């Protein structure tokens, strides 16, 4: 009784005093993403269900959605770490291609499956390490550093991804164990209601859980948010964290996720090809942004990114079903992305106004601008007047 009362008390105080602020600034983007996801599912349910007992919102459809997008979920999770820290990683699409090519070349020469996959993932880790070192130790912009690694990975996959005649082409991965792994799944249900969970989905979910724990329940995870605050990790450093090493680790995580995503993509496509994953990094970034992570860093959740991937995946389900050309998917994707960025912007502006209204000693944007722009604006009128 008393504990229940206490709980209500606490919840009440929480809601009144901070709930609004929390809701407004921290969780609202993710809530927006989840709401979008739910609305899309309801839309699908209303529009596509009904024929011969077919239901759109059903385990077969949803697990298929997960299976088709597992690699992107993993990629988006890695990207979330980077974007949370205020950085960006453009290399992941190319790293996916490199990974698939590495698998396609290693398996035929008799390297055991397990070792091949580990090597493939480690290739991604190495690429991430390279970016991290460039960013941290040489102070290179993440954009440029990861762009350089994009070219490197794409180039390497071109060099490695040749058949026995030295011709660059899509290499079919012909390997008994690999094929088994690709087709392995746990089956649930019967007949029409049959649904499966395959290895890719399990791996993606595992990565998601691990990423959540790392981000929210380890010191390293807190450091990621700390770096994203915008002071380049200075405060985190003064508080006794290690932002330098963490920054490198962040890019290694993104690289590793790209490596894992590469393995999943290879399982999905059954080929290794240097042209795989072109533009995939942008899909990942879009999913992260739709998932409610601020591109400026410091705010966001991996769960949001996973939801963002599902929103993205649903668009690609809807468009063909509506009888539209597949190219429309991209346009819709762009529209949704834009809406979410606008939503984030609105929240940020509201947050600033709120804290200014609170009397918290935060710079008021308008007046700050006024004093900085003062010079320019003044110049203009002065010239006009004379």
């Amino acid at each position, binding site marked *: 009784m008393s504990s229940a009362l206490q709980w209500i008390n606490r919840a009440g105080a*929480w809601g009144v005093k901070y709930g609004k602020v929390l809701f407004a600034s921290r969780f609202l983007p993710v809530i927006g993403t989840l709401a979008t996801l739910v609305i899309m599912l309801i839309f699908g349910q209303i529009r596509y269900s009904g024929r011969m007992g077919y239901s759109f919102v059903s385990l077969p459809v949803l697990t298929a959605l997960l299976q088709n997008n597992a690699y992107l979920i993993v990629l988006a999770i890695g990207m979330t770490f980077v974007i949370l820290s205020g950085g960006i990683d453009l290399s992941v699409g190319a790293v996916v291609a490199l990974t698939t090519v590495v698998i396609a070349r290693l398996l035929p020469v008799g390297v055991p499956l397990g070792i091949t996959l580990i090597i493939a993932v480690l290739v991604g880790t190495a690429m991430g390490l390279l970016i991290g070192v460039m960013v941290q130790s040489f102070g290179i912009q993440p954009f440029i550093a990861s762009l350089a690694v994009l070219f490197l990975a794409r180039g390497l996959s071109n060099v490695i991804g040749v058949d026995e005649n030295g011709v660059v082409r899509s290499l079919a991965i012909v390997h008994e164990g690999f094929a088994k792994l690709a087709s392995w799944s746990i089956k649930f249900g019967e007949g029409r209601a049959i649904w499966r969970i395959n290895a890719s989905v399990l791996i993606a979910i595992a990565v998601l859980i691990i990423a959540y724990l790392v981000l929210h329940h*380890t*010191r390293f995870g807190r450091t990621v*948010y*700390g770096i994203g*605050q915008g002071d380049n990790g200075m405060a985190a450093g003064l508080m006794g964290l290690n932002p330098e090493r963490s920054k490198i680790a962040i890019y290694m995580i993104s690289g590793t996720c790209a490596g894992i995503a590469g393995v999943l993509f290879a399982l999905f496509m059954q080929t290794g090809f240097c042209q795989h994953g072109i533009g995939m990094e942008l899909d990942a970034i879009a999913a992260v942004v739709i998932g409610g992570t601020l591109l400026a860093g410091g705010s966001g959740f991996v769960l949001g990114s996973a939801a963002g991937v599902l929103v993205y995946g649903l668009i690609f389900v809807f468009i063909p079903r509506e009888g539209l050309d597949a190219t429309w998917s991209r346009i819709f994707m762009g529209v949704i992305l834009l809406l979410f960025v606008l939503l984030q912007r609105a929240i940020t502006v509201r947050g600033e106004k709120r804290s200014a209204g609170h009397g918290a000693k935060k710079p008021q944007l308008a007046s700050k601008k006024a004093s900085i722009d003062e*010079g320019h604006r003044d110049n203009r009128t*002065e*010239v006009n007047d004379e």
Partner: protein
Amino acid sequence: MVGIPGHTPPHLPHPFDLEGVLSAVDQTTEIVTVTGASISFPGVRALDGVDFRLFPGEIHSLMGENGAGKSTLIKALTGVYQLDSGTVEIAGEQVRFTSPVQAQAAGISTVYQELNLISNLTVAENVMLGHEPKRGPLIRTRAMREAATEHLERLHLRIDPASMLGSHMIGVQQLCAIARATAVQAKVLILDEPTSSLDKTEVDALFSVMRDLKAQGVAIIFISHFLDQVYEIADRITVLRNGKLVGEWETTQLPKFQLISHMVGKTADELAAIAGEAAAGERVTQDAEPLAQAIGLGRRGMIEPFDLDTYPGEIVGLAGLLGSGRTEVARLLYGLERPDHGTLTVRGRQVRRFAPRHSLRRQVAYSTEDRKVEGVVGDLTVRENILLALQARRGPFKPIGKKEADELVNKFMTSLDITPANPDLPIKNLSGGNQQKVLLARWLAISPALLLLDEPLRGIDVGTKAEIQRIIADLARQGMSVVFISSELEEVLRISHRIAIMRDRRKIGEEVNSQTLTSSKIFETIASSQELR
């Protein structure tokens, strides 16, 4: 008075001894010994052969003007900066920290002057970061919040530990930083300006925690610009000036006035002269036309309509608590925001256009309260910062000639005594007081008729304060009209000819400053109007 410290342990009388808990603490062995510490930055010798010692169970105040090297010494102790020469010993062992992590591991816990917390993490995470309760490799969130709540409650701070740090006011964030520093079992606790945003009760709570820690044998370095606080809490005082050690004294044996004279490097007589000069300044003209006249000026949600006149040669002080509407008055007078009520007249002409560019042409200048954000442009040089407003008024096609610019810059650098006297240094390398002087120079360069100064003395040491006050008094004597805002009533009383009293975004009174007007009388006015409501 002890000069440069030898190696004699501190002697009685120690307020601490009276409490009779000394026996547990070995107070005679230094916990921190700094010998000959030197650090140079480009253009500045921040620390020059400084010796410093700290004993367990004492509160030691590090005093000096802005730029004296206090913060640098602290950062050298905590591994943020590395010493160019000299040594640091912790408990007799020589150490060389290369990062704050190492200093923390060695038992040195620090609250830095600039708030160095992570605003996008929760309060609990900030307080407990680095020493969270864990299960295996994972942080236990609930236990962490409970522990954080405990530490916060010692400072009488009851806030939701799960709320975001950034959603709280600066004062609360400062308390969080202090809670964080006291959460670890530190041997040495460093508090660099921990009280700058705290109110009286919060300061009292902090002091009681500090006394507890002292009784447990923790050595505390306490840096503050508030002399009263230093005298209330500190056992000993070390004074730095221009990066050099001046001396170390027992607090009880160092009268305030002497402390100030050590800090600013002037004799007591010279200081008295400055103070007298600032206070002197009779109002020049009595019955002239008002320079600026606000009649029923107000803006909804910002400030209720008020009347205020300013005359040439007069300093009008705005007294009131933080958030009482002082800044809002200045912003309306400046024309930064459009009033929705009443009229503002400058030199007999009603003001219709509200924007800084028009204000500049009206020769009204506003020096902002928030020096760091709205004032200085950190990456530009001192020279550029001084010339900014003048150039802005002139327009981009009429550059200030090099000779004229040099003359102006030199004039202000000498007349305001800006140090280091190098106009080509980026302003961010200057101390707070000198940055403030540069800002003053910026507005003086446009030779304003009305100068609005919002907290021009905040975070500035006594010597510079007196100097800036004297400059302001001089300006008024030369016929400038000045509006002076400060949280410190004594400052307002010392310098103003007339004082407008503010409360709750309302002007509640106006008094001519005479001998009979005291700070308690103003406080009474503020308090009594509270009862009326």
